[in-house]
């Protein structure tokens, strides 16, 4: 290279390197930003001038009925998601079992619960008493269905079973993502199928499973609002109950929207840390690991 460059050109280039640099100007960006700001300002002023009583929003944001609704929303999110993940893992394992009956049952479950609308499933659970007036084991015990399956139970079963069908596919994908060599190595040190799954395969599948399941937790927070149609007292239903009485429709919907956004934001932050934890083997400090070996329970 250097032998093809004459000394004069080299000197010229050195001089050029000293010149002042004028940054490129992005006129398009300025125009776009200005236009968007104008639209935003218009939207904000519309909401400020519009017929929304902001003090009412503030007043109801922490109203007892709203807070208890929020509590019920969160409880249902946790319970339905827990049920969904447990069912998801169980059915994913059944799906991958060498036993054709187990595989068939898992296939049917996933097919049915993914193939029908959630709202319809909720209505079926809620109206189960029409089909089975009592449930239980014949001769041992039985309850009246209407006592057992109220709004809470119907919502839990509806959301949980539906979630399980989706999570089963996510878990199956996660398990498949783990190299078969890992299973063979686990077998070679004398692990049984279930120990291998629990100690070796699932922890590594987690890296693939956590991001979509985290997403689904966030979806679930909002999905619980569907349960308002079967009288489960979650936040949207309580907001509705209030606005039926005081006619402050938009104000109460804004209250509910504010809480959903707040919860989802917190969950997104949590998801970030969870994903970092499960990317083990791809980071973390040496010292932390050394400490972890000594403390970690068997």
């Amino acid at each position, binding site marked *: 290279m250097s032998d093809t460059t004459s000394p004069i050109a080299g000197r010229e280039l050195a001089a050029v390197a000293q010149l002042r640099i004028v940054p490129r100007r992005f006129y398009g960006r300025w125009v776009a930003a200005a236009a968007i700001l104008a639209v935003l300002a218009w939207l904000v002023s519309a909401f400020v001038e519009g017929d929304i009583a902001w003090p009412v929003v503030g007043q109801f944001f922490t109203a007892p009925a709203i807070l208890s609704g929020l509590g019920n929303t969160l409880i249902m999110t946790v319970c339905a998601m827990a049920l969904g993940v447990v069912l998801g893992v169980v059915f994913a394992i059944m799906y991958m079992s060498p036993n054709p009956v187990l595989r068939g049952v898992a296939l049917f479950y996933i097919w049915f619960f993914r193939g029908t609308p959630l709202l319809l499933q909720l209505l079926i659970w809620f109206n189960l008493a029409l089909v089975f007036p009592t449930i239980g084991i014949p001769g041992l015990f039985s309850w009246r269905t209407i006592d057992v399956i109220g709004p809470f139970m119907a919502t839990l079963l509806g959301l949980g079973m539906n979630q399980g069908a989706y999570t089963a596919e996510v878990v199956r994908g996660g398990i498949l993502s783990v190299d078969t060599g890992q299973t063979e190595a686990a077998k*070679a040190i*004398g*692990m049984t199928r279930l120990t291998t799954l629990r100690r070796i395969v699932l922890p590594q599948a987690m890296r693939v499973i956590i991001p979509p399941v985290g997403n689904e937790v966030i979806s679930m927070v909002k999905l619980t609002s569907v349960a308002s149609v079967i009288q489960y007292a979650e936040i949207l239903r309580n907001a509705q109950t209030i606005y039926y009485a005081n006619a402050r429709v938009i104000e109460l919907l804004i209250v509910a929207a504010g809480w959903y956004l707040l919860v989802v934001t917190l969950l997104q932050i949590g998801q970030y840390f969870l994903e970092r934890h499960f990317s083990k083997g791809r980071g973390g400090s040496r010292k932390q690991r050394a400490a972890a070996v000594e403390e970690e329970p068997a």
Partner: protein
Amino acid sequence: MSAVQSQAGSDTAIVSVAHVSKFFGPFRALNDVSLSIEPGMVQCIIGPSGSGKSTLLRCINQLEKIDQGAIRLDGELIGYRRVGDELHELSDAEIARQRLATGMVFQRFNLFNHMTALQNIIEGPLTVLKRPRKEIVAEATALLERVGLADKRDSYPSELSGGQQQRVAIARALAMRPKIMLFDEPTSALDPELVGEVLNVMRDLAASGMTMIVVTHELGFAREVANDVVFMARGEIVERGAPDVVLVAPTQARTREFIAAVLK
């Protein structure tokens, strides 16, 4: 030991393979293979790819199920329990227990990726043998020292070279205190400059009196360390004997061709 003496059926053998066949669909991976191995012996198995040598190893620790024949390991029939004139298949848990007699080292290392070197080594003793953590951490640390990786105990597999991973894998297998070590082409996936460090660990292990079955393409290692070499082709044992015979002056044409091709 001569090839004739060590046909299946020797009473002192720690591994006896008798008339074993294995099919993958219509493909016959093993065809009526018989082999017996005495305690403390280093048995090398060589042969072209697809000759069934890895399959034989995987049958011995039951990663593959045999279709015909029988294998006896440390005095115990594997995979089955004999009830009168019948062989009853063993349960998952019983097969897992039988695998404890063997330690396996894989071509592709297969270290548990979510665990550090130390965690990989203590996992088996901890969850399978249920031994106290303190004791096995001390033992695992000693094993890491033995394979020359004391400073890597808290490294994840992704931070180790292939040679280092394979040495951790050997330590992981040894931590279970197996009676026999099985090596499935332990250096085939390694960069050439890393082969030596793994072979050194295996050499030390052989010197310590461990019974070893080594499937390998490292003819130099086989000649130096093996007590006996088997040449396999197309699922059959073609030739068996002392390394200086099989590797230097083989009697069979197929063995000669293979060795010439490898040394080229």
